[in-house]
């Protein structure tokens, strides 16, 4: 089991006070948290820093939740998105982003439920990433590179997967 401080959470919701208190609570529990208030801001942040789990509000002015999670996935393919939806919009949400999202949560969210979901999403991400990393490491071994080339390829891979 991983430490909570290993889990990097990206919050995206235009309801600023909600994000403020949610991130305070998560920080206090030990998570690493970055709060953003729009899809645009979130994608910008994701270009510079790596995250494990993103909590995305579906309904936001400007870039909506579906579009935001699509872009985030493009930047960080292993990032797991938890989408917050209002009552009655869950059907449309499922249709537009079925494959992308790790889970949908109905608003108003229950905090304990959210924490649990973040932990699950993180475990899921780590598993996916490890499996994929293993595959790629095996590919490198099979590639018949020399010791120097192999070392170079490995460090490149480490960088991609954010493993130091």
């Amino acid at each position, binding site marked *: 089991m991983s430490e909570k401080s290993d889990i990097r959470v990206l919050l995206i919701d235009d*309801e600023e*006070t*909600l994000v403020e*208190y*949610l991130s*305070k*609570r998560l920080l*206090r529990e030990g998570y690493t948290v970055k709060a953003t208030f729009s899809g645009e801001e979130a994608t910008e942040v994701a270009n510079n820093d790596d995250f494990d789990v993103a909590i995305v509000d579906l309904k936001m002015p400007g870039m909506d939740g579906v579009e935001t999670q699509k872009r985030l996935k493009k930047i960080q393919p292993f990032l797991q998105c938890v989408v917050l939806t*209002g*009552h*009655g919009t869950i*059907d449309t949400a499922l249709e537009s982003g079925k494959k992308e999202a790790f889970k949908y949560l109905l*608003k*108003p*969210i229950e*905090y304990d439920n959210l924490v649990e979901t973040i932990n699950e999403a993180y475990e899921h991400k780590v598993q996916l990433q490890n499996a994929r990393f293993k595959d790629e490491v095996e590919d490198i071994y099979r590639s018949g590179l020399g010791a120097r080339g192999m070392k170079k390829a490995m460090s490149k891979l480490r960088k991609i997967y954010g493993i130091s």
Partner: protein
Amino acid sequence: MESPETLQAKLKKANEALSEKKEALHRARDYLENVLENSRDMVFRADLDDVLVSFSKGGESALGYTREELSGRKMKDLAEHPHDFESLAVQCLEKKETVREEISFQHKTGRIVYCEVILSPLTNTRGKVIGMAGVCRDITAWKKFKEDLIRVDRLAEVGRIASGIVHELNNPVAVIGEISGWVGSVAGDAEGLSEEDREEIKTSIRHIGEQTQRCRNITHQLLSFVRESKLATSSLDAHELLKETINLLTPELKFTDVEIVYNFLEGPVFINSDKQLLEQVFVNFISNAVYAVKEKGEKRGRITLETFLDDSGDSPMVGIAISDTGVGISRKDQKSIYEYFYSTKPPGKGTGLGLPISRNIIKNLGGSLSLESEPGEGTTFTVRLPVS
């Protein structure tokens, strides 16, 4: 001088013309009588004092009186408010023109019949007004239809507004919930706080939590009502659904001295319905029953779930009766329990939405709902749903 022969011939010709005219007149009269007798409208004639001279068959059926009963009576006395008709008659006779007005009459049985009245002055050959002729059309059904339409329209409007408000309310409620959670965790390990104060804060936070939960219940219920989703119907066993519903309510039932009695038909009973919606309906009825039993405060209350088949209507129905031995519903409340936001429970216990929403759901599922209650004895809600 004309010869007798030509005179005779002329006379004969005149006679023939006369009988032809008479024939035409008869035909015209028969035609008019036919129209009068078969018209569903009420056609009448009255003299200058408004005393009825003639009254059509349509009038008899519209107001329930026979012609004999009406002879010699005044038209205005049949109106709900005699003055309404009187002023229309005065207007007609004074202006010597056709007038039109909506006037309500009273049927022999007492119910009100809304009519559109067209009143024209009758004149003799010298142009003197000798009475009035009127045609009344029963527009009660149309009026009711119009009122229903307005009501449905207004309800839809209220629904739209409510949905908007509820969506807007959801966010601040969520924020309040988060802030109180935050305060709770800060107070949980704050230094320099006496244990007493810490407990005090914890309790208050719990109360805030309960109240935000209460807000959520209202908003969720309202939204599930406003939401215009398609019904997801499938064939399901009513017995199984009822048992599942009881399972759902186990936490609520645990703390109540109430016995659940199943009075089911043998074997499964299949209905064609929307499982989720129907579950919501039964949760409502059974929680109400539990509440009624608790309210009465007697030891050993009983809630009976009964199923039966009803073949009396056009299509076979499954009946599901939910009876309790609770406080019952007063006559006065029985009239209002399906109104939105009408609740007899104390503030915080009821939203006043459960029953109207349940009734709406049952209606949408092609079923019907009836209620029997004896104050102090108990209540039975009976749901009828189409057999699958």
